[in-house]
């Protein structure tokens, strides 16, 4: 039976540690840049995983960083101290937005809210009615004109409880926004020298957001997004190697909706498909 396990935990953490110039430089009234709470759902079937949603709510004009390549900052991280028999999957990230700052600084960030999903696998035979609890340390860097690191250690508890519609709604919405995978054959791609040509039909606009282990682009700001259904990305050697192209391909469809897809394309040394 599908049910929801609400967390009781120490939530809503103040972000200001004052690592950025001291309290004198904080604007009056900006007491909290980030608040954090954790919501859960699951398991959908006996023995299945539990889903944790780490929800960061940001004050106006503050941003958090995506896990891919940025010119500054670092993304949130979650460190779990799991009880025996439990295991944790990776964090799943929604598509960010591009932020360009003076000095040709390109970051991929989140404003207003960031919900990270993570699946936890319980040990065999675990009954949610038994309850469970473990500590989690969450770290992040929130920036506006200045950057302020934040962290908190909270206790995640699994009491037996009834459905939590709010948590289910948040988790469902977060799951829907996660990047997908394109069918085989898409995008259409080829290399000409060190330039990668991408074509995704029926796109009004395309953008490429590189992962941290993607090859280095010559001009991610000018070439990282384009109108239409084609993108041309020039790569430069990074420690002697051109490519690969790994990251998100973000498509704006004809109706204006955005959809992101994971892509992982080899460099030119591997030849075009």
């Amino acid at each position, binding site marked *: 039976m599908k049910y929801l396990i609400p967390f009781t935990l120490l939530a809503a953490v103040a972000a200001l540690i004052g*690592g950025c*110039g001291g309290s004198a430089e904080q604007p009056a009234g900006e007491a909290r840049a980030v608040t954090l709470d954790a919501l859960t759902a699951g398991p959908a079937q006996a023995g299945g995983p539990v889903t944790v949603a780490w929800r960061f709510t940001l004050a106006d004009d503050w941003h958090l960083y995506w896990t891919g390549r940025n010119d500054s900052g670092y993304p949130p991280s979650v460190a779990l101290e799991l009880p025996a028999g439990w295991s944790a999957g990776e964090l799943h990230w929604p598509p960010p937005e591009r932020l360009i700052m003076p000095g*040709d600084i390109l970051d991929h960030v989140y404003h207003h809210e960031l919900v990270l999903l993570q699946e936890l696998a319980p040990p065999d035979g675990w009954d949610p009615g038994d309850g469970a609890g473990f500590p989690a340390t969450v770290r992040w860097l929130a920036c506006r004109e200045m950057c302020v690191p934040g962290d908190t250690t909270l206790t995640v508890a699994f009491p037996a409880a009834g459905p939590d519609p709010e948590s289910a709604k948040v988790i469902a919405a977060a799951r829907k926004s996660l990047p997908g995978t394109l069918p085989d054959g898409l995008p259409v791609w080829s290399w000409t020298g060190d330039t990668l040509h991408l074509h995704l039909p029926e796109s009004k606009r395309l953008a490429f957001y590189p992962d941290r282990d993607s090859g280095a682009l010559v001009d991610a700001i000018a070439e990282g997004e384009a109108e239409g259904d084609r993108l041309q990305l020039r790569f430069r050697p990074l*420690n002697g190697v051109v490519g690969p192209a790994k990251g998100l391909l973000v498509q704006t469809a004809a109706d204006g909706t955005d959809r992101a897809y994971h892509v992982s394309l080899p460099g030119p040394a591997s030849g075009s498909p």
Partner: protein
Amino acid sequence: MRHRNASIILLVLLLAGTALAGVVPGDKAPDFTLTDTAGETHTLSAYLAEGKTVVLEWFNPDCPFIKKHHQDHRTMDETAAAYKDQGVVWLAINSGAEGKQGAGLERNKKAFKDFKMSFPVLLDPDGTVGRAYGAKKTPHMFIVTREGAVAYMGAIDDDAGVQAPGKTNHVVAALDEILGGKPVTVSETESYGCSVKYAD
């Protein structure tokens, strides 16, 4: 005719100033002259003429990553001190615009004193030198060989958090190879830190 030629030259210079800048390993390092917090001027080509290898560290005293390496730990000063007698000059450069976080003469004078720095902090408030190098973060490290080439650019080390220095100091690794006459194995890493606070 002379007036028209002057206008064309000025237009070219203006366009050159707004063109995409930034170096990659192997490029000739852009020359510069900047003034430090004590009023002393420093010119890259002068150091190179003396046969020095130069390490440039982009700096913002209010950035948590700079504080990690200058205040909580002594990564930068200890690395600089270890290579000083081998002809390595270390210069911190602040390209933050006036009024922005960590910028300005007084703030950096105080930081130089509070961090007990053994190398100067040069001020680049209009961001000309930062943009010429493509400096994006603080810290963002560049090593210039005595021949004037960029041999390394990127992070100081391999821990991108704000707590502790990394296990591998990339600048040390590159300096050992440069001073030993060997090619630099890792000439570029992804730097980490706060964004350089350029003028809007």
